């Protein structure tokens, strides 16, 4: 029974001498449909069933993935991984993990079980999006639709035993009117309601933007006021939140390393990381250590006030 695998890992790793263990089992049937020149090029199905194991012997650490776990694979892999960790020098970046057991807030809208059968209708939805783009002026259409569902089970050596299910879809549609002029739209979410309509609208938007690009002129370098769409703004400002990762700061790879508490943007700039938005693509109730997720302000009125920590860097930064 697959549900016993994380427990088996924890017990075996502890018996072999691991002082801290995390076992996370992810079962993820996922699908992709790729299209170009207004035709579906390929439809894919991946069966991903991975048991991710992190283990520490004091401050000596290692990590191993077991694909499609079985008892035999666990019995072969875990003693080797513990033995491997014991040979490693102490890690400068590891100072222990979450030790408390928590309860978790249910996030509404995280899971739509209809994704299990979406593969039957999905090619038709893609063709509807292509037709919408062409109706809006596209000469040819390319893109991708991903969808699937994930069952996540987490156990740690400190007694965390939690699970949740989620579903997702995301699609990019790029329309071309000639070799140079194109337009793009994206959709992303977890709830399949009205997905066909959303795909059609994304196709229409991509086709419309492509026609607007015809005859585009080279811009002149200079200073301008700039309005960014949510997609562009999130992409650019998202780089800042990537830099607010304490591990990146500790290893000197974050441009924000020396700027905590400083004004790094205008007063009207606020950035929040919210893992509890129902349709949110990154939403989840707990992290890899079993710590409950929470809304974290990162930039408040232009000031860098928050980081996205896990226990190790949090402990190290207090030291």
């Amino acid at each position, binding site marked *: 029974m697959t549900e016993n695998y994380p427990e088996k890992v924890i017990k075996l790793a502890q018996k072999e001498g691991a002082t801290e263990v995390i076992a996370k089992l992810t079962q993820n049937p996922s699908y992709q449909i*790729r299209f170009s*020149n207004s035709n579906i090029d390929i439809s*894919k199905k991946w069966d991903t069933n991975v048991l991710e194991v992190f283990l520490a012997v004091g401050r000596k650490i290692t990590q191993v993935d077991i694909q499609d776990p079985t008892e035999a694979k666990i019995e072969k892999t875990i003693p080797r991984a513990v033995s491997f960790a014991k040979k*490693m020098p102490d890690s400068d970046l590891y100072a222990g993990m979450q030790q408390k057991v928590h309860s978790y807030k249910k996030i509404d809208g995280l899971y739509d079980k209809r994704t299990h059968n979406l593969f039957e209708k999905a090619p038709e939805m893609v063709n509807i999006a292509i037709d919408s783009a062409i109706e809006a002026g596209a000469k040819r259409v390319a893109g*991708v639709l991903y969808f699937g569902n994930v069952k996540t089970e987490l156990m740690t050596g400190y007694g965390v035993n939690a699970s949740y299910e989620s579903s997702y879809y995301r699609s990019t*549609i790029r329309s071309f009117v000639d070799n140079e002029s194109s337009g793009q739209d994206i959709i992303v979410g977890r709830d399949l309601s009205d997905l066909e309509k959303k795909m059609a609208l994304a196709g229409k938007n991509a086709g419309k933007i492509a026609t607007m690009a015809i005859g585009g002129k080279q811009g002149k370098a200079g200073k301008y006021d700039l309005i960014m769409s949510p997609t562009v703004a999130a992409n650019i400002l998202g780089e800042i939140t990537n830099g607010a990762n304490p591990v990146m700061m500790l290893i*000197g790879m974050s441009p924000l390393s020396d700027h905590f508490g400083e004004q790094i943007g205008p007063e009207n700039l606020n950035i929040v990381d919210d893992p509890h938005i129902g349709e949110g693509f990154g939403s989840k109730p707990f992290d890899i250590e079993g710590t409950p997720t929470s809304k974290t302000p990162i930039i408040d009125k232009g000031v860098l006030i928050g980081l996205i920590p896990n226990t190790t860097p949090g402990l190290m930064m207090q030291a």
Partner: protein
Amino acid sequence: MKDGYEIAEHAVEYGTKKGASYIEARFVDSRSEGYTTRNGAIIGGGESFSKGIGIRVITEGGIGFCSTAKLEKQNIEKAIDIALKMAQASKRKTPIVFSEEDVVETKWQADVKQHIEDKSDEEKVQFIIDLDKTLVNQDFGESLVMRTLLLEMTRNKKYIVNSEGSKVESDKSLIAFYTFNTAKGPLGSEQRFYGQASSKGWEWFKEDNIIEKIIEDNRALVKTANQAKNMKLGVTDVVVSGEVAGIIAHENTGHPSEGDRILGREGAQAGESFYIDLLEKQKLGEIKIGTEAVTLIDDPTMPGSAGYYLYDDECVKARPRFLIKEGMINDLLLNREFASRFETKSNAAARAIGYNREPLVRMANTYFAPGEFQVEELIEDVKKGIYMKSFTEWNIDDRRFQSKYVGLEVYLIENGEVTDTMIRRPTLELTTFGLFGGVDAVSKDTEFPYGTCGKSDPMQGAPCWMGGAQVRMRNIRLGGE
């Protein structure tokens, strides 16, 4: 391995019985191991194993793909059923057809003297720690203020079988070493990600003088941080090393030569190719893209190379592809699908980076073919110019026409000699025609740095060499400060 062979053969039998006009099954047994140090301390390390199968089917003109690590007949059959169902539902207006190729039954393997799994964990950890110490103990070591060293080793054993009767078994190792270091100098800091890799075994470090290469590269990084100055040169002659020529060959020729990009299949992923504009007007062999000094080759069959293979992931025999021959576009990179679209044969460019990825049109080892000159002869004919030995950032548009390469270790050439004056970050910002149209001489010597070529969605990072000869370009307008 043999259980994987049986399940692959069963998959082909089952898919054929269920109506696939073509089916191929690719079983891959992988082992990966890696270690990372930061400033001499191990910050990560481990090994991982995977075994799985990827299956591609064609039915009613559509393609379906499925992959799984659950190697049981019932599970495989269920996955094939879904792949067939989705392929049928594609309802393509133009059916996908593969080019006809020879049926082969063969084996190949990379030449390895000492497999990585025969070295102990301790030896490998100690090796990377010692190499960091070696760098610190150099006369320039103190200036390397941030050092990240990475050692990565993989071995893939593969068995591919298809419904036409081809069967190819292979065994390839890859060993790669990277330094990602920062040197601090009076004008600021310089950072460099430098990689070398080979399909040899542990013997590669000695046979190819890798430690010496890493030391010299870091010495140059420190020298650049200490000495490079801003300088405006305007229009000048440029000599680039094999490293710089290699990235140009890969980005400005290799990618636009990919058949799938040319015909739009990567339109929403890696991008398309300006070659389509050329091919709409002229045929291969008639399109002039550079001077006669320019010959660019992509060759998967180079022994010891990072992109080494003898048969591709569609069981087609590999050969060198002359992408540009004496200034004319000559070969495209093709898999079976796009060979059929161009009404020709595949030239074995199909590669997949794992069992769970579809084979795509990819480069292997792309390089500027050597010419007739010593590098000194390239330099002695330059009155004023630059010698660009390495590069830092670069970018290129998604049709691979407008490109920009920023120099890192760069020297001023005056009156036919390389001077001690170092120039800070000069920029080559040219179209592909501009780059190749300015080439007037190419050196005899070659070098082959390592790069991971990124393409597609989900991203497939393919190991490649990108290098070749040193190249002189005349009358190039330089950007930069």
